[in-house]
C-alpha cells in the first residue's frame, strides 16, 4: 500500500518536473501591456502571463512566492525598466535562481531601453518625491512606442525559440501592419482632442498627452508617489478659476477619492482610463486599450461644460 502511494507520488513529481519542458515558450511580463504584446507576436508558440494586473500599481508590488515560482519557470522576461519595478523586480530575479532571465541574457528584455524617454530629470533628489532618474516610464501610452518593442520582442523570441523564428516574424509583420493602420485611425479620431487640458492623479499620462496634443495642467499628487493632501487639492481647485482644465484623468488602479473631490469642487468630469490592458472590459488587448482610451476621452470632452 505504502509502496503504491510512493510510486504515485514519484510519478506525480516527475510529471510536475517534466511539464514545464514540454510547454511553449514561457514569457513573464511585469505589466499587462507587454504580456498582451507577447501574445500578439508569439501567438500559439508562447504562454505569456503578466506579473501584475491593471488594477495593481506597478510601482508597488511585492516579490510574492507565486511570482518567484513563475520567474523560475520563465524563458523570457519583459520588463518596463526605467526604475518602474525597482521595488520588487531585483528581488524577484535574484530569488528565482533563473539564469535565463537575468539582465544581459537574451531572456531579459527591457522595453525602456528601446524608446526615447520623456521628462528625464536634470537632477534627482528624493525631496522631489519618487522621481524616475531615467525618465517617465509610462511610455506605452504613446502607441508609436509599441513598435520598437514589438520588433525587439520578435527578435528575442526568434533567438530563444529558433524553430518559431518564421512565425514570429510573420506575426510581427501582421501586427505592425494592423498597428500602423490603427494609429492612423486613432490619430484621426483624436484630432478633436488637441489642446484639451487635463489634471491627472499621477504622472501616468504624459506620453498619451504628447501623442494626442493634450495639455497637462498638473497632478493630484503634490509630488510623484506622495499621497495627495487637502492643501494641495484646494490649490488645484483655486487654480481651476485662472487656468481651467477640462477633465481629471486617473488610471484604473489609482484611487478615485482625491479625483472625485476635485471633480465635485470644480464641476469637471473625473475620467477613468484603462491605462493598460485589462483596465476596463473593453481594453482586452492592445487595440482595445487605445480604442477605449480614445472613446472615454472623447465622451468626456463632449459631456464637459463649455
Amino acid at each position: 500500500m505504502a509502496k503504491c502511494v510512493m510510486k504515485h507520488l514519484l510519478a506525480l513529481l516527475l510529471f510536475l518536473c517534466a511539464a514545464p519542458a514540454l510547454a511553449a515558450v514561457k514569457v513573464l511580463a511585469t505589466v499587462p501591456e507587454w504580456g498582451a504584446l507577447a501574445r500578439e507576436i508569439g501567438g500559439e508558440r508562447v504562454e505569456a502571463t503578466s506579473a501584475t494586473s491593471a488594477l495593481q500599481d506597478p510601482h508597488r508590488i511585492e516579490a510574492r512566492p507565486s511570482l518567484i515560482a513563475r520567474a523560475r519557470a520563465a524563458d523570457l522576461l519583459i520588463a518596463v525598466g526605467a526604475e518602474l519595478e525597482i521595488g520588487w523586480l531585483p528581488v524577484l530575479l535574484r530569488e528565482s535562481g533563473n539564469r535565463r532571465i537575468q539582465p544581459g541574457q537574451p531572456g531579459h528584455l527591457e522595453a525602456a531601453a528601446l524608446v526615447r524617454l520623456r521628462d528625464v530629470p536634470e537632477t534627482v533628489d528624493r525631496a522631489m518625491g519618487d522621481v524616475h532618474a531615467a525618465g517617465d516610464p509610462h511610455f506605452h501610452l504613446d502607441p508609436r512606442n509599441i513598435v520598437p518593442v514589438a520588433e525587439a520582442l520578435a527578435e528575442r523570441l526568434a533567438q530563444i525559440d529558433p524553430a518559431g523564428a518564421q512565425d514570429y516574424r510573420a506575426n510581427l509583420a501582421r501586427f505592425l501592419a494592423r498597428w500602423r493602420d490603427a494609429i492612423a485611425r486613432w490619430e484621426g479620431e483624436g484630432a478633436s482632442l488637441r489642446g484639451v487640458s487635463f489634471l491627472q492623479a499621477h504622472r501616468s499620462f504624459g506620453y498619451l498627452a504628447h501623442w494626442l496634443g493634450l495639455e497637462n495642467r498638473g497632478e493630484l499628487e503634490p509630488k510623484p508617489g506622495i499621497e495627495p493632501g487637502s492643501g494641495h487639492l484646494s490649490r488645484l481647485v483655486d487654480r481651476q478659476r485662472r487656468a481651467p482644465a477640462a477633465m481629471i484623468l486617473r488610471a484604473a488602479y489609482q484611487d478615485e477619492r482625491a479625483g472625485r473631490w476635485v471633480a465635485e469642487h470644480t464641476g469637471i468630469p473625473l475620467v477613468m482610463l484603462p491605462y493598460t490592458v485589462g483596465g476596463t472590459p473593453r481594453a482586452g488587448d492592445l487595440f482595445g486599450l487605445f480604442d477605449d482610451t480614445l472613446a472615454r476621452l472623447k465622451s468626456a470632452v463632449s459631456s464637459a461644460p463649455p
Partner: protein
Amino acid sequence: MQSRVLLAAMACAFVWPAAAAENPESAQLAAELAALREQIAQMKTAYEGRIAALEEKLASARREERVDAAASAPPPPAQSAARGASAFNPEVSLVLQGAYTSRKEVEERHIGGFVPAAHHHDEDGHGGDRRGLTLDHTELVLAANIDPNFRGQATLAVLDGEVELEEAWFQTTALGHGAGIKAGRFLSGIGYLNEQHAHQWDFYEQPLMYKALFGEHGYTQDGVQVKWVAPLAAFVELGVEAGRGQNFPGDERNLDGFNSRAVFARVGGDIGASHSWRAGLSWLQTRADARENHFESEAFGEVHGAFSGRSRMWIADLVYKWAPDGNPARRNFKLQAEYFQRKESGHLAVEDEEGGEALESPWRTRQSGYYIAGVYQFAPNWRAGLRYDQLRSGRQFLGDNPAGIDLVDYRPRRFSAMVDYSWSEFSRLRLQWSRDRAMPGVTDNQVTLQYVMSLGSHGAHKF
C-alpha cells in the same frame, strides 16, 4: 581640388576677353575661350543636378523619420543615468533609527525561565533596555553586482565607538536551475523574521521568541547557504546551511569543520488575486563547548555555569497577506506567526564565585514559544498592528542539581499595539504600547515613539 580648377577657369574667363580685342592671335584664343566657357557651363549644370538630388534625398529621409516618430529613435546617450567611474559605485543605503522609550527601571532585564543569549551589546543596552531618548544603531548597507556571476553586500551597524559587521556576503547570480549559493556572514534563512533587519520590523522590538533564541539580531551564520527553487507551478524552496556556529545557542569552538547546520523548506502561493501566503519549516543544530552564563543558586548566590552539549531547534512560520485586487497601495493586511521548539542536551559545569571545584550536572531542556502579529494598513500612509508573544520555559532537567540552581518555571508573555505613519516609503514614525511580562513578578507598561529613516538607494524587500 575640383573647386580650385573651377576658380582658375573662372579667372581666365574674366581676364581674357580684354586681351583678345587687341591681340592679332585673338581668333584662336577666342575659340579656346569659347570651349572653356562651354566646359564650365556643363560642369555647372552637372553640379546643380547632383545638389538637387541630394536635397531631395535629405528631404525624403526627414519625412520618413517623421513617420516613424521619435519612437524608434535610439535613446540619447545622456539617458543612461550614471556614467563614468561613478557608474560602478555600489548602491549605498543608510538607515537612521532612534526612539523615545518610557519603561520601568529594571536592573537586569531578562526573559524568565530562559538562559539569556549572551551578547556584547548587553552592557550598553543597544537601545533595547535603555530608557528615555535613545539613538539605535545606524545601519549602512553597500551592495552591488560584482560581475556577471556574483553579487555582494555588506551591512554595518554603527553605534558609538563600535562598528559591527552584521552581514558581509556574496551570492551567485548565474548558476541557473533555480539554485543560488551565498557565502560569508549572512542572516540565516531559518524562520520568517530572521532575515529581516531591524528597520523592516513592524514593531519596535523583535518578538520575545527571537530574543530568547538568538539575542538581539537573529541568527547570523559565518558559512555557506545553498538554496534551490523547485521547477513547479507552486513555490517550493529548499535550503541548507553550514556555518561556524559561534553565535548563541552555540559558541566559538574553533573546529576544523562546521559547528552549525540548518535546513529550511518553504512553500507559498496565491489564493485569487487578493490573497497570498508563505509557510516554512526550519531546523537548526549547533553545539556549545562551555557556553558561559550566570545562574542564581540557593547555596552559593550568583554562580558561573558552563554548558557543553547539543542545541537543536525547529521553527514553523506562516505569513499571509491580503490586498484588495492585489494592490496594496491603499489598504492591505499582513498576518504572521512563528512557533519554535528548542531542545538542549549535555551537561553544566558550575563554579561558585570563588572559583572552587566545578559541580557537574546533566542539562536537558525542552522549551517552546510563539508569536502572532497582524498589521493593517487602513489608509494610505497609516498602519496599525497588534502582536502577542508567549514563551514556555518548559522542561529543565538538571539531575540532582548539586549546585542548587534556581529553575524558574514561567511563561513570559507580552502584548503590543502600534500605529505608524509613513510620509513616503523612506520615512516612518511609530507609536507603540506594550504590556511586558517577560520577567516573573514584573508587569511593565512601555510606551515607545520611534523613527526609521532610509537614505539612498534603498533595496527592495522580500515578501
